[in-house]
């Protein structure tokens, strides 16, 4: 599904290299987790995959289902099936959540040559998905993420993911700032989407999200590289003894 080879990324102004030869392969149907200390470049990876400006790829390649991802504008990446649940979802005053969701859904459909979704069908769909995430009508009517609590913002990210049905889902610290109940809702939302033709890359600090979303592979990222990969037990090891042991091991 997602193939990253020897990816080198620096800040656009050239002042700082962040990713330093990252390799990662996430096959369809799987859930991969990335853990790593703060500042190791996890969000940068997520942003570069989604096409955010401000970074320069100096080496390496990324392909999504065989397509060169780095050539595409962010909207084309989304239409190609990529989705990023933001670590810090963005507030957009003046644009209602409903209008946002419908515009996004129809834009992707249009880009893929599919017919636009009609208003009644859209409403039915959004109500159904919102209900599962405990998102009420008021949150749908309000401006995107404006005045939302931390947990509401994260649930709103998962709602977008559920509506857009992407093929490759990247979750950047979706668990941070969530209480146990919200975490369960988010995990349920993710698990409901698990499918043979879909893959997940779950970036997290904590083992606890991975109790709910069972990963197939766990990667440890340090200073812009994947330094170790393993099964779910790797997450437990990090939880118990931190990154120090692993760092020593790979040094």
């Amino acid at each position, binding site marked *: 599904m997602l193939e990253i080879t020897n990816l080198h990324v620096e800040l656009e102004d050239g002042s700082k290299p962040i990713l330093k030869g990252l390799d990662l392969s996430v096959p369809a149907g799987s859930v991969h987790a990335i853990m790593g200390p703060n500042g190791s470049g996890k969000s940068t990876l997520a942003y570069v995959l*989604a*096409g*955010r*400006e401000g970074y320069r790829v100096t080496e390496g390649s990324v392909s999504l289902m065989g397509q060169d991802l780095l050539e595409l*504008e*962010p*909207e084309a*990446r*989304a*239409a190609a099936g990529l989705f*990023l649940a*933001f670590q810090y*979802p*963005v*507030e*957009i*005053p*003046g*644009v209602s959540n409903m*209008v*946002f969701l419908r*515009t*996004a*859904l129809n*834009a*992707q459909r249009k*880009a893929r040559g599919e017919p636009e979704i009609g208003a009644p069908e859209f409403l039915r769909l959004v109500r159904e998905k919102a209900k599962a995430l405990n998102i009420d009508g008021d949150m749908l009517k309000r*401006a995107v993420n404006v005045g939302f609590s931390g947990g509401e913002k994260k649930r709103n990210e998962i709602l*977008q993911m559920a509506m*857009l049905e992407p093929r490759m889902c990247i979750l950047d610290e979706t668990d941070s700032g969530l209480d146990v109940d919200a975490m369960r809702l988010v995990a349920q939302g993710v698990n409901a989407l698990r499918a043979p033709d879909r893959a997940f890359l779950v970036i997290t600090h904590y083992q606890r999200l991975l109790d709910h979303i069972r990963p197939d592979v766990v990667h440890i990222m340090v200073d812009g590289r994947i330094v170790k990969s393993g099964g779910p037990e790797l997450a437990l090891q990090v939880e118990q003894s931190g990154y120090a042991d692993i760092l020593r091991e790979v040094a």
Partner: protein
Amino acid sequence: MAEAARRQEGAAALLAAHPAPAGEAGWAREAREAARARLLAMGVPAPRDEYWRFTDPAGLIRPSPQDAALLTPDEKPVFGDFDRLQLVFVDGVFSPELSDPPEMTGLVIQRLDEVLATDIHWARDLFGQLESRGQEPVARPFAALNTACAATGVVIRATGPTPKPVSLRYLHRSTSSDALIRHLVRVDPGASLTLMESGPAAARLNLCMEVEIGAGGRLDHVRAQGRDHERQAITHAFVRLGQGSVYKSFTLTMNGRLTRNEQLVELTGPGASAHVAGACVGDGDFHHDDTVLVIHDAPGCESRQVFKKVLRNGATGVFQGKILVRPDAQNTDGYQLSQGLMLDEDSQFLAKPELEIHADDVKCSHGSTVGGVDETALFYLTSRGIARNEAENLLILAFLDEPLAEIADERYAEDLRTRLQRWLARRR
């Protein structure tokens, strides 16, 4: 001395270009004469004047206007879908043939020329009166010119609740028209009216409106200034509010080489409320100026100014807004916001927000910002599959939503929103 002479000559030339209407009643002639004298005494503005620092008055001073090409209509008229009483002006001349019969319950409508030929009329207390009071603290010479010379317009009196809006539609059919339009509006105590205005009016428009709202009365004023690229306009609204009355005004401006909208709103009765809002979008040869003075002259009044401008390709937006709180106006609640959204580095937004407060128990705030489209928001939208253009348009409409939300009737706001969407769509 040479300077003063030049100003006066300019005023005299403008007066000469617009012969005063004949056959009017004595009181009207007196008001006209007084306005002539006022204009000659103050003269036309000079670009160095503080009050004209951001807007070059040259296009308004020249005795005849620069030609303005006509825009071929490519969409339904603004507010065309709503049940309304429509009065039509063509290049500043009232057209009875194109207008609806001026009859409606709760309302009396007359032509300005008829009223000014009448010996005794309530309009006597309004015509030129609010304008002349409004010459302090700063001169408004083009409003005085309007009082001295404007021959057409309507005189409207709302006597009760009115079942539908009055819509004044200004058509532009001649490339060289120079229109002076004058309206007088009185909303009786407890009465209410929605007044719409739309259209470019002329190559050059000088429109002035004097409005008196009685105790507990309400006027909703919704304007859409026309899309013709080369038109120029200076408008004045002088509004006086009585106790507990409400004035809500919104103006949408698209295109136009020069637009200056001056509003002077006086809250003279306790508990009155005035909201003046505006949204404008300009591309290229576009200069738009909102000059607003809100005077709190009674306790417990509330006022709100919300002005937003979207500018690209070297367009200029100006906001000069002031809240003046007189000593008796305790418990004043005043708010002012002006914001410019620049779509490139060639455009500019010049703002002069002011507060002058002479009472001590007052809540007043103002804010003015200028910036570009929020790149973070843009990335968020595009990362969800929305094309960059469309995402930018969404954010522009969102930016303009605050003034649009000041329109009480959501249907009218929605009509204007779709115009803005089309304006944005054309710019690709």
